[in-house]
């Protein structure tokens, strides 16, 4: 039996015989590595990304590995995307937010458009989808929502505060959502990675080397976060200490550093 590539959309009726996960930003380096490491934990997967051709490559890969695959081609910057998810989560057990972009800080300082686009992608679009997803999971009284934010959201820095602000917003949003959904038995997990090697950071100098992780290490933390019980996870764990130190530097001193 040659496993064919077929494309379905979210909402198609499913015979669920295992977990169904929804991966937003499935083409991110981290998402791909996560899916590989998590492969034995699910039987159905819905991939959401903006490149249709690559979605087919991903679908064929996962179908070769005996998964039932659905794909959805979406640009998260488009308004109204949350409607795609309204009423579509009945079969979905876990939702993962991987997409994001690291904008050019200088461009964001010069152009309102650039700044707002980054905030819109990293924060606003996630809020739109999370509103829809959270309500459905709350009603089901089950589900896992895992959102990848960043250590950059822990403290605004002159080098990347637009990105940092978008991730800080998302982190705070998830924190509140976690508290709201706790009583409904829905887990909301925030993973905050430090720097790692991915498409996003290709070409950046990887110094100091000890602060840079390989993607598989970060993906492992995401897997552990998904299957474990912690709710706010740094990746790797030592970033909790680094960020604790960075956050405790008084603003008047911090201003004069190059951090």
């Amino acid at each position, binding site marked *: 039996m040659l496993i064919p590539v077929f494309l379905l959309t979210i909402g198609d009726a499913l015979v669920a015989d295992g977990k169904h996960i929804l991966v937003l930003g499935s*083409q991110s380096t981290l998402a791909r590595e996560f899916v590989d490491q998590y492969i034995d934990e699910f039987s159905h997967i819905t991939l959401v990304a903006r490149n249709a051709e*690559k979605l087919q*490559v*991903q679908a*064929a890969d996962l179908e*070769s*590995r005996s998964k039932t695959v659905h794909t959805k081609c979406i640009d998260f910057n488009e308004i109204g995307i949350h409607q795609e998810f309204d009423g579509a989560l009945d079969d979905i057990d876990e939702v993962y937010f991987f997409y994001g972009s690291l904008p050019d800080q200088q461009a964001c300082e010069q152009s309102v458009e650039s700044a707002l686009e980054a905030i819109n992608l990293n924060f606003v679009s996630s809020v739109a989808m999370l509103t829809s997803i959270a309500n459905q999971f709350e009603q089901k009284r089950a589900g896992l929502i895992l959102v990848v934010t960043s250590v950059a959201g822990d403290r605004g820095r002159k080098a990347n505060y637009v990105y940092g602000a978008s991730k800080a917003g998302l982190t705070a949003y998830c924190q509140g959502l976690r508290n709201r959904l706790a009583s409904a038995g829905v887990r909301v997990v925030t993973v905050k990675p430090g720097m790692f090697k991915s498409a996003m950071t*290709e070409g950046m100098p990887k110094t100091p080397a000890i602060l840079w992780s390989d993607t598989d290490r970060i993906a492992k933390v995401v897997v552990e976060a998904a299957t474990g019980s912690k709710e706010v996870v740094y990746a790797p764990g030592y970033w909790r200490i680094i960020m604790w130190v960075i956050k405790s530097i008084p603003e008047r001193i911090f201003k004069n550093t190059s951090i």
Partner: protein
Amino acid sequence: MYRSWAYIPEVEQSAKVPQWVADLPTSTTGAANSVLAYGAGRSYGDSCINTDGKLIDTQQLRHFISFDVDTGVVTAEPGVTLDQLLRLTVPKGWFLSVTPGTSYATLGGALANDVHGKNHHCKGTFGHHVKQFKLLRTDGQELVCSENENPDMFKATIGGMGLTGIITQITISLQAIKSANMTVSTQPFVGLFEYLKLSKISNQQDQYSVAWIDCMSGDMEGFKGLFYSANHAKTGELAYDEAQSSLSAPSIIPSYLLNKYSVTAFNKLYYAKNKGNKSGINQGYHSFFYPLDKVANWNNIYGKKGFYQCQFILPLDQNEVFDQVFTKIRQSGMGSFLTVLKEFGVYESAGMLSFPRPGICLAMDFSNRGNSTMKLLKDIEHLVINAGGSIYPAKDKLMSAESFRHCYPALDDFKRYVDPGISSNYWRRVSG
């Protein structure tokens, strides 16, 4: 940072890391901007390094395209490692038809070096099981290659050291297995003739055989060895055997720890521990095929200066040359940690520049002591070339252009298929 497995040449290079086949560069300009595909860097020599140009790391190109569980035909992107493939196929009863001694190698790297395994006498090389592949040339052209379509490019690319283009997709056929286990027998022996006798008998009944030898323990008639023969077990579970490194070599071990005395002691100990005659012992496939993968970064044990691998084949009628090689090694006072002997079958090579050919294959490693190690390897090179033997490019970083031409008479023919936008340190050295 990118370098070869044996840390020589002592260079580290950066690379482009495309995430998708569709993102591969489709045109580069001229030899000055040459590119080279990099698999997992498990080649010991300089064939996976291109310090005058750029590297393209293919490890993210690791999607499966299809897997036919009824026929055992799998199509995948080139960065899929052998381990990733086995994880998919073993539970369905399929194993690689040919595998090298590391599961971390990629399909692209295995094809480009036309790698061999412990079953050469009955299955030939990796290339013999490649049904088709796609090749992206640096002018943007994409070729589908098989025995019927672009057959010359097919032969040039198998064993073509990445020089004919970037392989973007590979279809191979697997062999059916009933169990993930191996049934392994061990037999101690002394000297080359006893080895040949054992090998002859084993070749008729076993799919796999290989010998470990202590080349310091005696001359051609007197060295000690252990002969391993094996088959896929007939019963047992079909479970993926994880490539988990249980040990890790510390990142820098002073190289003086690895000297003639410690190597001799290691080899004696290894022999003493394993010399009991054992037959039909069941073990997982991983520990049989990939014992070194259990120690992460084992290449670090040779210290910062790295080491040399030396692997060659001598025609069957050139046994006395083994004696000369062993004598040279004993005289040099340099020990080889791991020396492996394997008789190759009479398969016609799948590729134009494939290394395997009929004869006896010997693989050794020497920690890098500078000029004296180089001299030893050069001496061995001359002995091998004069005897009509050949040296394995995947393990080589010293061979001269002249020697290369002796080993690979199809060189001039091959050059017609080389992509002008691709080069490597290896190629610049041997193609002259």
